[in-house]
């Protein structure tokens, strides 16, 4: 089960509205390598990890990804709060507005809805961990693109934090995969 802690993992306090940036951030809300995608991917793969290390690591990283999803939604919420229709239209968010008003919808910046086909599960723990390593690298690259798109330090600080987490998660997945290969670990069931 999960227990909610009423705080963000890292603070998000954005003073200036920026609808274009909010739109770009949807890549990490409902895009292929989004935080949602990561959380579901690891939660879904943990059942076929061969030992306790894998079950623990996937559970704990998946849980952290949910906290990251909350940070991304906080950023989108604060960047769009109080936006006028004119601002929404100018930012190219008219399409999203027509369907969802000010509600956050789990889609990418181009309005493509989230799909579970983003989540890879092969049942083979080496294949899964290697796809997780690649997913962390793609998310790191996405955060770099997002950081390229803004100079607002209120937005850059949480993005830099989230990017760095991808670096750490990649490392842990790699260490686990190397350990399984070195020790020739096999699934018992």
């Amino acid at each position, binding site marked *: 089960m999960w*227990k*909610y*802690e*009423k*705080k*963000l*993992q*890292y*603070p*998000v*306090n*954005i*003073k200036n509205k920026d609808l274009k940036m909010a739109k770009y951030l949807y890549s990490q809300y409902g895009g292929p390598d989004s935080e949602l995608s990561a959380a579901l991917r690891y939660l879904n793969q943990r059942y076929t990890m061969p030992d306790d*290390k894998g079950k*623990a*690591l996937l559970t*704990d*990283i998946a849980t*952290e990804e949910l906290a990251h999803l*909350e940070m991304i*939604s*906080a950023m989108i*919420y*604060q960047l769009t*709060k109080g936006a006028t229709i004119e601002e929404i239209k100018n930012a190219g968010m008219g399409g999203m507005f027509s369907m969802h008003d000010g509600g956050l919808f789990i889609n990418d910046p181009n309005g493509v809805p989230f799909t579970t086909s983003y989540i890879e599960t092969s049942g083979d723990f080496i294949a899964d961990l290697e796809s997780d390593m690649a997913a962390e690298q793609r998310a790191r690259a996405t*955060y*770099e693109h997002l*950081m*390229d798109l803004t100079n607002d*330090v209120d937005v*850059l*600080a949480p993005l*830099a*934090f*989230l*990017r*760095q*987490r991808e*670096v*750490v*998660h990649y*490392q*842990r997945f790699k*260490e*686990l995969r190397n*350990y399984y290969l070195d020790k020739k670990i096999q699934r018992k069931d």
Partner: protein
Amino acid sequence: MNEYRNALDYYNYKNNNYNNPTFTENVNANNTYDPYQGFIRGNMFPKLYNDYKLSSPVQLDNDLKTYYDALCFAAHDINLYLDIYPDDRDMIMAFSNYSNEAEKLAKEYQSQFGPLFVNSEANMVYPWAWDNEPWPWERGGN
């Protein structure tokens, strides 16, 4: 060492001595950052740290909230490490220290800013305090 450092940090926190932070930059590649330095980087491990665009990490307010967040973060990052290296005694010690310190601060934090958990002591009040703004995604939230 960790125990001493945590005690000193807590002392400084209790005495509003924030202008003299004891979280000093630790550049030993085999060691971890202090909770604050690790938190602002999003990484407790100097060997793994890898930056982008920003020439230095963004500093956060030197207050109770940052201090609590930093201790939670430090414990969590070490948690991920321990999942893979469960027999690292020093890191288990660091995890316990940071978790215990965070728990101590949580009490104080909640007495000022409201409950973090629905079953915290800070929520055993009338009227029900859990609903109170700001929620985490709102500006100025926890």
